[in-house]
């Protein structure tokens, strides 16, 4: 009892601390001062009256949304004596693995830098700045020569690292038994089983209506669609984040999705936000970073060739180039097992005073990174809003897909969940695929790392991401991956090679949801 109370007050204190520094706090303060003019505010009952005013005017709702947002994003504090690394990642061996993976990435980046004799960062000459400003809306044309650049790493490189993860404290013996995990991931993390998943995803049950299925043309809209849309509009009018998050578990109507996501992620476009984005844009114009070329290359290799997203190529540059300069992203490393790479001013290697984070946001893009942004272009065409939404999606969800951690939504757990589901419920299929050298994870890994972007038709992908937001968890990706295998089980049983298995699943893009 006492423990819970003190936990609660700790949480409250933390959230208050965080919110005190935010824009919302300043706004509330201003509103409170302004409200003194109002006739209903009396000096004797000042506190209550102002509270009442906030309630009626919708400011309380905004505060609620902000608190809810903080709760969703920040993990709860654990033991008071736990060091900050525990917040990033409690398991030591995971931290170590992440650390050595980061060293490898950095080494790769530095060697590319040295090979090509390109500085990690340089200030652009004025002429070049002007040119870039003119070209800001069409950076896709006339690109620089990127042939010498290669992506720093690709998902399959990362998979190899995950496969080799071992818990030094875990001994499972050499003898094979029916308990032996047949898959590639060999670390003992706790993942949900089907009963637990059923409970967790209760709104996805067969008896509950879902958009994407129960609003198809064969079903009369009175049965589900109309009511669901009506509730959605109500949620938006109320501007309630928590309600929106609950609502979206059944899928979002296309017309409401942009607003619902903004509500859930607690994004509102204030002038300060637009100004911030413009500031980032100025940074891009003034300085050129090596990662810019990596971003260019990635967009050209992935999104530009995608028949859904090629249209938005220029938006992708506008978002990603700014993203890499956004130092506010650094705050998410408090709960990310990864740490931002450090770089030193030329000639001052090792001297902490001359260390900077590189890139400024601490995130080194890998092959396929731009696909996190691409689907969002279907929803937001205003660059600063698109930017904010992407940034929030990244610091809430996407970062977990390429860092080594024990978090239930981390990629390691997702892989393990996928493999466990497959082995438990489709053991014959799993065994067959393993025998022909087509470990299922090798096929599904890239789907999960990219959150299926580029592997599903956009309308279906957005429905999937609805659920990620709704459940505040990425586990649905593993479930979907397993479901695809289940769906294709008959065909897969007949294939005899990894390549054929890949092809079999390639029809994913047109497959049923």
């Amino acid at each position, binding site marked *: 009892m006492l423990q819970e109370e003190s936990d609660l007050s700790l949480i409250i204190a933390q959230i208050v601390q965080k919110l005190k520094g935010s824009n919302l706090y300043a706004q509330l303060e201003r509103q409170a001062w302004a409200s003194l003019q109002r006739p209903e505010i009396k000096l004797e009952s000042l506190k209550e009256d102002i509270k009442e005013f906030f309630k009626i005017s919708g400011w309380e709702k905004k505060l609620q949304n902000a608190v809810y947002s903080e709760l969703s994003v920040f993990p709860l504090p654990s033991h008071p004596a736990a060091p900050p690394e525990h917040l990033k990642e409690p398991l030591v061996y995971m931290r170590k693995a992440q650390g050595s993976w980061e060293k490898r990435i950095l080494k790769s980046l530095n060697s590319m830098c040295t090979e090509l004799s390109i500085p990690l960062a340089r200030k652009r000459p004025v002429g070049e700045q002007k040119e870039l400003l003119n070209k800001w809306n069409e950076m896709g044309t006339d690109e620089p020569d990127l042939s010498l650049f290669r992506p720093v790493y690709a998902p399959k490189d990362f998979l190899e690292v995950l496969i080799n993860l071992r818990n030094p404290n875990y001994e499972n013996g050499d003898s094979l038994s029916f308990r032996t995990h047949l898959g590639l991931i060999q670390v003992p993390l706790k993942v949900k089983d089907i009963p637990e998943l059923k409970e967790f995803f209760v709104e996805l049950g067969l008896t509950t209506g879902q958009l994407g299925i129960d609003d198809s*043309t064969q079903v009369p809209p009175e049965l589900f669609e109309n009511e669901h849309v009506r509730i959605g509009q109500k949620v938006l009018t109320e501007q309630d984040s928590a309600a929106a998050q609950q609502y979206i578990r059944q899928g979002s109507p296309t017309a409401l999705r*942009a607003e619902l996501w903004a509500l859930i992620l607690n994004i509102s476009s204030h002038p300060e936000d637009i100004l911030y984005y413009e500031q980032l844009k100025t940074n891009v114009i003034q300085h050129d970073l090596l990662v810019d070329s990596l971003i260019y290359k990635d967009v050209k290799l992935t999104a530009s060739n*995608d028949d859904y997203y090629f*249209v938005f190529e220029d938006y992708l540059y506008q978002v990603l180039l700014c993203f890499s300069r956004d130092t506010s992203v650094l705050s998410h490393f408090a709960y990310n097992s990864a740490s931002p790479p450090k770089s030193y001013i030329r000639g001052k290697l090792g001297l902490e005073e001359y260390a900077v984070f590189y890139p400024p946001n601490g995130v080194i893009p890998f092959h396929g990174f731009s696909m996190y942004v691409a689907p969002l272009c*279907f929803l937001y065409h205003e660059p600063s809003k698109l930017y904010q939404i992407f940034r929030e999606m990244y610091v809430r969800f996407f970062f977990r897909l390429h860092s080594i951690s024990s978090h239930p939504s981390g990629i390691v757990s997702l892989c393990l969940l996928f493999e466990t589901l497959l082995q438990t419920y489709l053991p014959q299929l799993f065994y067959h695929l393993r025998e022909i050298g087509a470990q299922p994870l090798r096929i599904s890994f890239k789907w999960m790392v990219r959150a299926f972007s580029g592997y599903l038709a*956009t309308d279906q992908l957005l429905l999937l991401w609805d659920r990620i937001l709704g459940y505040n968890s990425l586990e649905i990706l593993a479930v979907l991956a397993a479901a695809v295998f289940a769906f294709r089980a008959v065909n897969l049983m007949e294939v005899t090679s990894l390549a054929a298995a890949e092809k079999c699943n390639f029809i994913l893009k047109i497959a049923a949801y």
Partner: protein
Amino acid sequence: MAGKVKWVTDIEKSVLINNFEKRGWVQVTENEDWNFYWMSVQTIRNVFSVETGYRLSDDQIVNHFPNHYELTRKDLMVKNIKRYRKELEKEGSPLAEKDESGKYLYLDFVPVTYMLPADYNLFVEEFRKSPSSTWIMKPCGKAQGKGIFLINKLSQIKKWSRDSKTSSFMTQSTKEAYVISLYINNPLLIGGRKFDLRLYVLVSTYRPLRCYMYKLGFCRFCTVKYTPSTSELDNMFVHLTNVAIQKHGEDYNHIHGGKWTVNNLRLYLESTRGKEVTGKLFDEIHWIIVQSLKAVAPVMNNDKHCFECYGYDIIIDDKLKPWLIEVPVPCDLAPGHPTASLRSCPAPTLRPQAGVGGDEGGRMRTDDQVNASPSLTSSTANDRILKYNLINDTLNIAVPNGEIPDCKWNKSPPREVLGNYEILYDEELAQGDGADRELRSRPGQSLGPKGSRLRDAGRTVLTTWK
């Protein structure tokens, strides 16, 4: 009688031939007894021409209407629509209602257009009313963006004023005939780029009008960002969406070909603009297709041996209003395409057009009088699949059960064979619903959500208006 359908074609395209072969049909030459002839527009002229034409028997079907050019030629299409509007106005039909500025409320879907040189003076009058406007000049007899240019000064088209002959459309001087239309300089842009819509419509009969819309239309994007600036009026990569033009651009991508599906467009518009306005836009698009067909129906030779598949080119402006640009017939060879092999067709020898030829060398074949049309050429893998399926579904509707056709049939295929087609408008069905429907439904007026929207086979026929 279960004989095999005998087919002929003068267009060597795999999307066609594969479809015939998979039905087990037998290829014959045009001199033998044939049941199905997929012909180019040159051939159709011969088949139905007064001098050399022959009578088709009941078990023969062809893929064009004899005077399809009433719809597919840019100038004739406009003429027919103008005539149709005037007729409706004379009858006092509510469809021909106009607003305060004299614009048709429901039938204003073709940009203001004049024929040159015939209407030169009328055009000049209109031009002078808004001298800062841009106009687009399109040669009547060409396709794939050839010969198109933009003007914003009268001096740029002076040579059409000097031609004082008012020639009829079928004579020699049609090679100089142009249409000039008000250029839509505020197209809807996505990703900063201009695009147009290509929708396929199959007409099995004009009287009663029965037409089907292919659900899988696509958008064609320019590779270059759009700018209305006058300095870029000459840059065809900014303004013309024809794949034949765009694919020569630096940034043309062969994987997606600059194409989006109509479903993508719908998703994007619904997500960013809302469901109602998107629904309204698509309703309007269906409306203008049906109205254009109704406009040519009276003059169309509704030969029972014919069906035809048209490709509608539509541009959407930034107020989400759709405009009908033209209706070419997708059947001819695309010049310069690697898989195309030139087949000489039984038509009079054609003289190459002046100024035409260019980088296509001698392989190009153009046509004096009839639109050479967008092609069955596939520019990407997806495209190939689309065209293959399009032909497949078209054949299923036009040649029921893949059996030897009988022109006396009622041309009402069962729902199941429609494939990716949906009934766009069925005059017989619509009339059967009673005349009182006509006044109730208009594009833009709120109907019940399922009233006039294009829906799956399980739902009611698309339109409730006549």
